[in-house]
């Protein structure tokens, strides 16, 4: 393969392959089709956090004109499954039914109505009479773990739950060395516990699906998903129909961030279509999205660090308790990632322990969310590192430098802790974290600003930093495949299962193929995520697409390249080995050339005809981490408690950036989402478990006025196992803001915040507490 210096298409910020249609508002999304003949489907949500359904009387609802079908537990399949769109067998418990005889959170599915109009469907929902037997609800981690707590999953036929009788979904416990002895041997020990809140992805397009039968009576699901192949498999399992009878098409998706790695609506729409023969349309309102889609797992995480006087870590312990809400989707794997994506960063500690449990509560259901547990883990880890640096009298930067993993090094955690099971051992082959830290510190003005506590009226400035890693896909589990076929004008069809949810993966995969084939990216016609047309791919999650799907594309392109050269060689009367593909031509040693169009025409029409095409797959043997150094300057209003992020610098090593503008865009979006998570976003609950702020007015995500001066710096490296030297970059950025802002607030005003979000109320409370004389606290 070409070395990075000679890349032509890779490394260029080419335009998005689907960009023109998007800026023109072309009909590209699920809802953008003629809906005049569909049945509108609406879901009845539970008013109770925990209750048994005694009886559902839908007779009045069925009489409403236009109502075509009413779905309840009485007339739908009862197969237990998980809604988590993960590889098979899923590491999440099979604890969900289409419609159950019990509801487990406010908003849980009770029934659904399909009607000729939205109004009729809504009227029917109001006419359904449900008799509930209310049960005591579990509304926090502590209540879930209390002796004699109500059992949320007492149904008996669920599988894969660690200990249902104690509301424990998952339990993870791994050891390296002897952590207790390690703390005894350490010169300095610090310990910190942090808590994170319920927060939502809030893609601007909510979950939406459109289903119909094609002319062969096969079920077609056009759906806004990150995991089309998992949707096909899980819908087949849930509805009890063959995979062969289902086609899943993912059009453009209006953002996912993890919440669409879930099968939330497709089973209902599919069932309506199968039962009625009619097309169905089901779209969550914004309020329903807040209540019944997915959230991030709230966690309480304790970190204990032991270090020697020289600032080298000797022992590290992390204990995480995760609230996985009413169902266990992603409960185990998010929990495991809280340790597996954080602890290897500090591989100098010879003794390490990770322990965690995920527990059920009667609250909305967390799932996959960009960062996937690492976000929750880095808050206490990087807070504790800041505290440790102070105890040691070391600059926080210097403490990190003495401890972070480097090229050629490994961590036993890689092998011990994986995706809900044992992991995969690996050695880091690319890491420019040292340079990330250096350029980031320079850009923020670390040396001048740290400890300076500059004041402007009530505003006090401070700077903080943090470092982190993530991964690139799930090693030895994720699989991606790609097919490339050639057309006689020298263009190519690139067919990938990979799922572009707005990330730009269609574009960067086209760039990788184009680089191998010596053509501009615009010569690739990309078709992605149609289970009838494209080869398999697990989908858009776990920072896998660039690294895993990218490698599959590179291999398929290399296969096609070989076929092109074999056809071109006799045309140019040269050996295959002497030919190159450049500028849409096969070029021989003396400069003789033949266009790719001529090559394909010969292969199609002239002699020894065959279709120039190749399919290739990739199952990665490792998951090379991208690395990130974050720096923030904040200003804290000591009178109101308001925190402003003035400047945020993120220097990231994601290997070769296939498309630098898009890699920056991934970072910028993740960081701003993370700033919202750090400062304002929080789902609030009533005393009965109802979401109190299910709107974008009451749940504040950042707008253009809330964004700081934000610098993303791509610090290049070359990952030898990646396609064109690339690693993935989709998730890592979201982990940075919480610890970085928390550490900057400490630098500014000396308070340690251990509960997100850092609202003015919480900051002011901490400030008041700090100002009191010690004895009064």
């Amino acid at each position: 393969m070409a070395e990075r210096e000679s890349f032509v298409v890779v490394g260029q910020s080419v335009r998005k392959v689907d960009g023109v249609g998007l800026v023109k508002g072309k009909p590209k999304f699920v809802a953008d089709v003629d809906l005049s003949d569909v049945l509108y489907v609406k879901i009845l949500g539970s008013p109770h956090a925990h209750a048994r359904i005694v009886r559902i009387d839908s007779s009045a609802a069925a009489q409403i004109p236009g109502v075509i079908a009413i779905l309840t537990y009485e007339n739908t399949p009862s197969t237990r499954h998980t809604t988590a769109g993960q590889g098979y067998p899923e590491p999440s418990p099979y604890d969900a039914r289409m419609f159950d005889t019990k509801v487990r959170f406010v908003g849980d599915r009770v029934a659904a109505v399909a009607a000729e109009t939205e109004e009729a469907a809504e009227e029917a929902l109001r006419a359904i009479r449900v008799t509930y037997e209310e049960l005591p609800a579990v509304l926090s981690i502590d209540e879930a773990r209390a002796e004699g707590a109500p059992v949320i999953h007492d149904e008996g036929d669920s599988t894969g739950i660690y200990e249902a009788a104690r509301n424990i979904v998952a339990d993870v416990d791994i050891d390296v060395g002897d952590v207790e002895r390690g703390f005894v041997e350490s010169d300095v020990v610090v310990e910190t516990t942090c808590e994170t809140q319920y927060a939502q992805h809030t893609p601007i397009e909510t979950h939406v699906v459109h289903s119909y039968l094609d002319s062969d009576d096969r079920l077609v699901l056009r759906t806004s998903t990150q995991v089309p192949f998992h949707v096909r498999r899980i819908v087949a399992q849930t509805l009890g129909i063959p995979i062969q009878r289902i086609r899943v098409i993912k059009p453009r998706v209006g953002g996912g961030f993890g919440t669409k790695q879930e099968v939330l609506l497709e089973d209902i729409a599919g069932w309506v279509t199968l039962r009625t023969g009619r097309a169905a349309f089901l779209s969550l309102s914004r309020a329903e999205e807040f209540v019944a889609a997915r959230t991030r797992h709230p966690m309480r995480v304790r970190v204990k660090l032991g270090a020697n006087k020289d600032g080298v870590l000797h022992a590290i312990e992390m204990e995480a308790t995760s609230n996985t809400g009413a169902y266990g989707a992603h409960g185990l794997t998010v929990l495991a990632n809280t340790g597996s994506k954080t602890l290897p960063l500090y591989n100098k500690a010879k003794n390490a322990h990770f322990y965690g449990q995920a527990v059920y509560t009667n609250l909305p259901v967390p799932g996959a969310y960009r960062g996937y547990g690492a976000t929750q883990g880095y808050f206490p880890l990087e807070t504790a590192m800041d505290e440790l640096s102070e105890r040691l009298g070391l600059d926080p930067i210097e403490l990190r430098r003495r401890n972070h993993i480097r090229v050629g090094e490994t961590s036993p955690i890689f092998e011990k802790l994986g995706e809900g099971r044992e992991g995969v051992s690996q050695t880091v082959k690319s890491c420019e974290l040292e340079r990330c830290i250096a350029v980031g510190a320079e850009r923020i003005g670390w040396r001048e600003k740290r400890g300076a506590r500059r004041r402007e009226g009530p505003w006090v400035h401070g700077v903080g930093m943090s470092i982190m890693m993530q991964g690139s896909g799930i090693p030895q589990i994720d699989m991606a495949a790609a097919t490339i076929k050639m057309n006689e004008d020298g263009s190519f069809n690139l067919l990938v299962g990979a799922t572009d949810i707005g990330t730009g993966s269609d574009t960067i995969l086209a760039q990788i193929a184009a680089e191998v084939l010596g053509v501009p990216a615009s010569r690739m016609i990309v078709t992605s995520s149609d289970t009838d047309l494209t080869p398999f791919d697990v989908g858009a999650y776990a920072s896998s697409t660039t690294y895993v799907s990218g490698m599959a594309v590179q291999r398929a392109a290399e296969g096609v390249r070989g076929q092109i050269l074999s056809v071109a060689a006799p045309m140019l009367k040269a050996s295959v080995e002497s030919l190159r593909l450049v500028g849409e031509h096969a070029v021989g040693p003396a400069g003789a050339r033949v266009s790719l169009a001529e090559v394909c025409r010969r292969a199609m029409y002239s002699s020894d005809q065959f279709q120039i095409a190749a399919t290739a797959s990739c199952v990665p043997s490792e998951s090379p981490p991208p690395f990130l150094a974050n720096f923030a300057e904040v200003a804290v209003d000591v009178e109101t408690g308001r925190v402003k992020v003035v400047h945020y610098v993120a220097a990231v090593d994601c290997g070769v950036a296939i498309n630098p503008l898009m890699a920056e865009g991934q970072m910028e979006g993740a960081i701003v989402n993370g700033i919202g998570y750090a400062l304002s976003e929080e789902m609030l609950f009533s005393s009965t478990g109802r979401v109190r702020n299910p709107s974008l007015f009451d749940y504040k995500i950042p707008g253009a006025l809330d964004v700081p001066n934000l610098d993303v710096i791509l610090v290049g490296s070359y990952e030898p196992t990646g396609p064109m030297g690339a690693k993935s970059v989709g998730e890592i950025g979201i982990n940075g803001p919480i610890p970085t802002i928390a550490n900057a607030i400490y630098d500014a005003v000396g308070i340690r915040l251990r509960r997100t979000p850092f609202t003015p109320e919480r900051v002011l409370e901490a400030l008041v507490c700090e100002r009191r004389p010690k004895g009064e606290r």
Partner: protein
Amino acid sequence: MTSLELTINGARRVVDANPGDTLLEVLRRAGHVGVKKGCGSGDCGACTVLLDGRAVNACLVLAAKAEKRAILTIEGLANGDALHPIQEAFLDEGAVQCGYCTPGMVLSAYDLLSRNPTPSEGEIREAISGNLCRCTGYVKQIRAVQTAAERMRSGRNG
């Protein structure tokens, strides 16, 4: 149902509407699906259209109120194959990720630049502050509006 006569992107159209229908619902039913629904309550800006040249949330406007007024949707911005400079700039600057907020964001920028060809960064942020985007972090969208403003002043496009 009653009939409404709307002027959409310069063309007069008669559309069916219920008395309570919003402009968002009517426009989408009429095929202008570039007008997106994100919340239905005026919080996200995905349904932004121009009404007599000013950006409004179509989900907050009764369709009947739009009669006899000029409606511009994203579909009316490009001139055939020639994109508007704002659309070009959004592509060049990497300001489009999922693209769901893009039509509304572009139209808010169009409203701004039609009134203020030399906006400051703060004015740009203000103008698009009602358009929520979860993908981009706004950095490249703000830059795209700056680039579009420069190109429109100098008469270039791309």
